[in-house]
C-alpha cells in the first residue's frame, strides 16, 4: 500500500492544474491496478473490486481528454497489482481514501478551471472518485452499477 500512499501525497501536493491532472491520472490507474489485483482475494468482494476498477477507468478516460493534461511524456511509478501482506480491508480502505481524495481535489479543481474542457474532465473524474469511495467505503450507499 506504500505506492498508493505516495500517489495520495502527490495528489495532495499538486498545486497547478496540469500537475493535479497528471497525479489524478496516475491515481486512477493505481486504483485500477490494485482493484484488478484484488478481485480474487475475497469472493464476496468480487463485484466491489470489479466495479471499482471500472470506475477507475472512467476516471482515467475523463482526465485523458482534459486540455490542460500535459501532452509531454510523463513518468510515473509502477504500482504493484497485489498488495503483498496487506489484508483485504486495508486495501479497500486505502482505495476508498484515495477515491475520496480524488473527489475532493478534482471537485475543487473543477470549480476553479478556466477552460470548459478542463471543468468537464474534472467533474467527471471527481464523480468517478466519488464512486470509488462509495464502493470501497465500509459505510457506502451505492445502488447502481451505472
Amino acid at each position, binding site marked *: 500500500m506504500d505506492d498508493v500512499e505516495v500517489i495520495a501525497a502527490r495528489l495532495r501536493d499538486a498545486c497547478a492544474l496540469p500537475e493535479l491532472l497528471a497525479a489524478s491520472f496516475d491515481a486512477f490507474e493505481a486504483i485500477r491496478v490494485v482493484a484488478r489485483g484484488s478481485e480474487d482475494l475475497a*469472493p*464476496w468482494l468480487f*463485484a466491489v473490486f*470489479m466495479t471499482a*476498477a471500472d470506475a477507475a477507468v472512467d476516471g482515467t*478516460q475523463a482526465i*485523458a481528454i482534459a486540455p490542460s493534461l500535459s501532452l509531454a511524456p510523463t*513518468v510515473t511509478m509502477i504500482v504493484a497489482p497485489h498488495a503483498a501482506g496487506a489484508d483485504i480491508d486495508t486495501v479497500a480502505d486505502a482505495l476508498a481514501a484515495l477515491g475520496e481524495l480524488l473527489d475532493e481535489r478534482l471537485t475543487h479543481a473543477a470549480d476553479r478551471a478556466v477552460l470548459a474542457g478542463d471543468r468537464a474532465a474534472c467533474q467527471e473524474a471527481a464523480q468517478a472518485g466519488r464512486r470509488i469511495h462509495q*464502493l470501497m467505503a*465500509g459505510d457506502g450507499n451505492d445502488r447502481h452499477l451505472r
Partner: protein
Amino acid sequence: MTATFGDFLHPAGEHIAAAVSIHDELPAEATFGAICQFGRLLFTLVHYLDDLPVPDEFSAAMAAEPLSPETQTVLDTRIALRRGAQSLRYAMTTLADTVTDDSHPAVRHLSAAAGFLAAGRDLLQTHFATSPGGTRELRSYWAPVITSPPVAAALLGEIATCALRLAPWTARLSMPEAIAGDVPAGTGLAVLTASHCTWVAGAAVQAAHRRHPPSADAHRLLCAIPAHFPPPWVEPSGHEQVSDLSHGAIVNAERLRQAGLAFARQARWPPTSASWRKDALAAAIIGHASEVILRGLTERARQLTLGPAICAQVHSAADATSQAWPTWRAIAHHWDIASTGIHRGAGFTPVAAEFGDLVLRIGRLAYGNQHWTPARAHASQTRNPADLAPAPGDITCVVAAVHTAADAVTRIAAEDREAVRAAAANHRLYVPSFTRTNAAVVRRRYRPASPSRIDEIPASYDDAIEASTRATSKLDDLALRLDAPT
C-alpha cells in the same frame, strides 16, 4: 402475462367453426352483414400471405431458377385469395347503402374471427420494423422463427383451414334467394367468385401439405410466438423476497434482450468501448453471482432429494457458469486499456440501465443481504441454500431467473461482438502508449491499437460467447427438466 399468437388463432378458429355451423337460412340483412365480414376475413388472410417471405408474382415469373414447391404454394394461395378479395370488394361496394344486421350470431362470429385474426397478425408484426429504405427488418429474436420455413408452413396451414371452412358456407350467401331487394345481380356472382377463390386457396395448401405436412412442433412454436413488447419495468425495492427477485430478474432479462436488439439498431447511442466495458462488467458479476446461486441450488437439490439426474444437471450448469464469467472479466480487462475514444455526455444506454437492475437482483439472490449492491458496505456471505429454495418449486423459480439472465447476457455479447468487429474494421480502437523502464512507466497519449491487439479483443468475445452459450445450453436443459418458465 404476454399474449401469444395462439391466444388469437384458437378463438378465431372457434368463431369460424361456430359461424359455419349455422345452417338456417339467413335473413337478407344478416346475409349482407355476413358478406361484409367475409370480406374483412379475406383481406386479413391476404395480409398474412403478403407478410410471408416470398417474392412478388412478377419477380417470381422472371426468376431464372424454378421456384421451390413451398414458394409456389404460397404464391398460388396468395393469388387465389387476392382474386377473392377483389371480388368481395366489389360486392361490399354494392352493399354500401343497404341495411345490414350485425347482431345475427353468424355475423357476430365472423366479425369476432376477423378481429382475432387481425390482432394475431398485429402481434406477429411487432417482431418486424420497416427501415427508412422501406425494407422489412427483424427486430426480435422471434422474427427469424416467424419467417422460418417450418413455421411459415404451419401458418399457411392455419390460413388454409380457415379458407376451407369458410368457402362452402359463404357460397350459400351468393344464392339469389339469399340476396334480395335492390342488390345488383353481380353481387351474388362476386360472392360466389370469392367463395370459389377461397376454396382454391385452401385446396392448394391442402394438396401441398398432404405431400409435406408441417410438423406438430412448428405448429406449437407458431402458437407460442409472444407479442414483442418489453414487460413493464419493476424497480428493485430492496425488500424483495426470493420469488420477487426471481420474477424481477426474468423481467429484467427479457427487457435486456429487447433493449439489446433495439440499441444495436439505433444510431442515437453510437456503440463505444465504455458501453462494451459496462456490459462486460455486468456480465462478469452476473455470471459470478449465478455460479454462487447454482452451487447453493446444487446443495439444496441434494437436501431435498430431488434425484441424481437433477442434482447432476444443476452441478453441471454451475460448472459451465464458472467457466463463462472469467471470459467476461478478461473482456473487461481489455477495455481497461483499449478504447474507441472518449465520448463525453453520451449518457447511459437502455442496456446499461437494465444490466444494472439485473446485477442487483441476481446479486441479491446470491448473497444473504437483501440490500446487496456491488459496494463493500452491502457485501455479505452467500445466501443459505435453504433460504434460497425452501421448497422444490422454488428451485425452478430461481433456475428460471439464472437461465434467462444467462441467455440475455449471451445475446448482448453477440451484439457487442459485431459492434466491436465493426469498430476494429474502421480503425476505431486505440490504446495508450506506455513504455516500461525498470521502475517507471512513460505514458503518452492514445495511438491506434496494434493489429495483434485488434485481433485479441474479438477473439476474447468469441471465447466469452462460446463459454456463455455452453452455460446457457446447460441451463436450457435444466429449465426444460424442471419445466421452468423461459
